[in-house]
């Protein structure tokens, strides 16, 4: 029991100080019937580090990891190269084993980093302010819808059909209980987004329009017109960005009129991790700041007048406001925010632009190569590093088939939209700087065989 420093002698001395005759005396308030007399049956006892590591390594080997195969999955989680220094720095005990910075005098490291992170996110998104992170993109999206309800005092949200279906599901789950009205639809396998339909649907009951940019199929639409229409009707535009690298190449949603921009930050610094932990980004324009959920770090001075940072505006939060808080979120995704911030600092604007150009260039190359495969049709006119193919067969079994050949081919729309026959032939393919020309050739060859 290598993690427990007390010796039996210590324990005896401590019981004596306490005035207890045995450890059982300290559990006297537990009802007799619920007191377990010994270790819970059916579970193994303690194991050496070597044994645990072996067991976990065995489980790890039962997976085909992204780095081991030509890999093309995206749809809300992207494989990017994370510099080694990022992981080194986040493992420093002073970051890794610190708590939420409630005592700012001895947490300036975390606080300054959060202040820098907030500024980075705000600038990336083209917004005035950002918070200190949310759980992930999907929960941040729901929080944005709730925030729009608070701001507009309206309860109807229009969700674009291009919004990630998991994000839609999360919103539907919550709306079922909160009574918010959501308007949703399935996407269509065409080059056009649903921007026109959304414009039509905005009315004076609308609290917000939620648009993903680029959308789930990888399509890119200008948000300016939707923003203008929403604002005319007193509604907010919420933009959702699942791939932050795209904003190294594309106009920021905030600069096109979005009031709230939320999204997933996983691409920068965090890694795939089978879906979590990720980091939700949340930014908005200055006038809504007091309606924001989550923690905020602000600049101030100390007793000697030196610049310092503290968590602030906590009167919005649950530990002060309890049931009147803007959200119930408490622990967020601090360490992932740190990873994001370090990676973004390494990149800088120059590096992010280079990275984006490299992603897009490879994606263009891949799209051209794959579209030339018989039975494959490129759905998109526009895309960043992810696009949708329409196959001559149902995509889901094709993906399984290719996985057996050691190619992780992409995300089938059948997986994301089970039961939607009109989408069953769709395959979302993501291409990043980690994709090689050999990978693209392998996928093209695999598709050719699978569709033959």
């Amino acid at each position, binding site marked *: 029991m290598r993690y427990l420093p007390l010796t039996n002698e210590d324990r005896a001395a401590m019981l004596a100080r306490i005035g207890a005759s045995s450890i059982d005396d300290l559990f006297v308030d537990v009802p007799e019937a619920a007191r377990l007399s010994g270790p819970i049956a059916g*579970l193994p006892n303690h194991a050496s580090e070597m044994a645990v590591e072996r067991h976990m390594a065995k489980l790890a080997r039962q997976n085909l990891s992204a780095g081991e195969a030509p890999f093309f999955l995206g749809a809300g989680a992207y494989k990017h190269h994370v510099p080694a220094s990022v992981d080194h720095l986040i493992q420093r005990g002073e970051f890794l084993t610190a708590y939420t910075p409630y005592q700012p005098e001895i947490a300036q490291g975390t606080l300054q980093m959060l202040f820098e992170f907030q500024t980075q996110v705000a600038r990336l998104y083209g917004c005035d302010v950002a918070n200190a992170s949310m759980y992930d993109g999907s929960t941040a999206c729901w929080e944005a819808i709730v925030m729009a309800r608070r701001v507009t005092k309206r309860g109807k949200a229009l969700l674009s059909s291009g919004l990630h279906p998991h994000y839609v599901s999360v919103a539907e789950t919550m709306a079922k209980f909160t009574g918010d009205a959501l308007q949703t639809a399935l996407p269509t396998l065409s080059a056009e987004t649903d921007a026109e339909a959304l414009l039509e649907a905005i009315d004076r009951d609308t609290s917000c329009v939620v648009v993903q940019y680029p959308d789930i199929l990888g399509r890119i639409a200008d948000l300016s017109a939707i923003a203008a229409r929403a604002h005319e009707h007193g509604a907010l535009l919420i933009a959702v960005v699942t791939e932050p690298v795209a904003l190294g190449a594309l106009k920021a949603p905030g600069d096109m009129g979005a009031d709230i921009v939320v999204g997933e930050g996983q691409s920068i610094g965090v890694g795939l991790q089978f879906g979590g932990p990720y980091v939700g980004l949340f930014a908005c324009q200055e006038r809504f700041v007091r309606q924001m959920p989550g923690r905020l770090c602000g600049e101030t001075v100390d007793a000697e007048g030196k610049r310092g940072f503290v968590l602030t505006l906590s009167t919005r939060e649950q530990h002060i406001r309890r049931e009147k808080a803007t959200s119930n979120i408490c622990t967020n995704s601090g360490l992932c925010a740190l990873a994001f911030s370090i990676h973004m600092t390494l990149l800088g604007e120059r590096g992010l632009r280079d990275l984006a*150009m490299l992603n897009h260039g490879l994606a263009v190359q891949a799209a051209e190569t794959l579209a030339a495969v018989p039975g494959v049709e490129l759905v998109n006119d526009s895309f960043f590093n992810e696009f949708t193919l329409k196959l001559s067969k149902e995509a889901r079994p094709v993906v399984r088939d290719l996985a057996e050949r050691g190619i992780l081919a992409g995300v089938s729309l059948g997986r994301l939209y089970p039961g939607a026959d009109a989408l069953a032939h769709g395959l979302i393919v993501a291409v990043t700087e980690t994709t090689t020309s050999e990978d693209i050739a392998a996928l093209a060859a695999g598709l050719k065989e699978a569709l033959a």
Partner: protein
Amino acid sequence: LEEALIFEIGDTRTTGVDFSPSPLQGRGPGRGEVGASAGDENAPLPTLSPEGERANRLGGLERTASFGLPGLSEPETVRHYTRLSRQNYAIDLGLFPLGSCTMKHNPRLNEKVARMPGFADLHPLQTMDTVQGALGVIHELAHWLKTLTGMPAVAMSPKAGAHGELCGLLAIRSALEARGDARSVILVPESAHGTNPATAAFCGYGVENIPATAEGRVDLAALTARLGPDVAAVMITNPNTCGLFERDMKAISDVVHAAGALVYCDGANFNAIVGRVRPGDLGIDAMHINLHKTFSTPHGGGGPGSGPVVFSAALAPFAPLPFVEKTDAGYVLVEEETAGEHHAQNFGRMTAFHGQMGMFTRALAYIMSHGADGLRQVAEDAVLNANYILRSLDGVLDAPFGASGPCMHEALFADDGLAEGFSTLDIAKGLIDEGYHPMTVYFPLVVHGAMLVEPTETESKAALDQFIGALRSVAERAKAGDAALKSAPHFAPRRRLDETLAARKPVLVWKEPVVAEAAE
């Protein structure tokens, strides 16, 4: 000790990451710079112009203007964050006695395991055949959590404790609605974590307080009196935030169930009883488990957490998607598509993908390391350490519930007896000068100037003795009215910070100084 902001030392043309050239390079005019930029920061910022036959496919929405994201070379980056880190206090540096937060040792084995490529480098939407080991981790951890709590089901996807509370209340609400008995009120003890009422409100419930007895426990009589057809559930923290075990827990569950309501337990303090008490034996219907508290995943300066929720048989059918099932053909992830067959009452999805995998691997490594015997020892040592602190400060600090029985894994003190003008805050800041992170202060709200001290089981007796000495010394100075204490900390990276100023005129992002702007 001053570390400049990245915006003050970096610029938009510097980068600490090199890239290979883009395949679009040289394909058309105006794009020759792409990829050639590395090593020549004076090249124009890359853009893809839409001219030419093989132009970009960005739909005419290229970002052209600079947006002011500074970059640093790798050496500067490493130094910036290394220096910043040194302004933090952390478990690795010393005892971190934050009550209710369970700041225990974070084993490095966990970090190593979580980084195995077979876990860290998996996409959540890979085909199930390619992620059997990952699903196995979720399944194994779920098995441990169910067995340790004595509950038949667990939802793994909640992202943190508060998200777990939400999960539990949504299941409760679904269950009540399913029996056609929607109810509107959640009862919460005054001493509860703020997330409890906030979560109840977040999913649309009204919230009412339950009073406590003089000894710091839920007032069973008052609770019974309040129960009625409008009460959906009671949220109890057990062990509670006063550091006490709710002796009447089983009786509470019984009266709540008798009134047609359900029992939610805030499991933040599970560390005190893991391996010694199964919440399922106390009649609880739902409880979240903070993997970052009881099971040693790192707090990381504020997350990520992970808050799986165990369910009673009454609630199990309503648990959210997705979850992992073991079948003859291997592990299967049950999502929207397949849930209908046998889990049609699920209340839906709480998050994209499947939860905090990175925390599952760490928690499983920790749990296996301790095993059934070790986890029991964890609870015992945690409780022993807390009682040792409680009793070692007899006569120094007032323990309002010192006579209510042994404390569990945290010791609660109040600010009685301090000199005029001295408060809990002064003791907290004074502890910083002694080299410690302060305890949780002003929580729970039911105790005046509360100080909640949780040492955890990973502190040695020597470390406790040193801390007790420091706390005694600070407390005595506060009782004696030592003026120097009012301006503590003196030996921290910063003196007391002006939180009022921060809130009154919020500065949440860095802006170029006005002088510099004028000069541009």
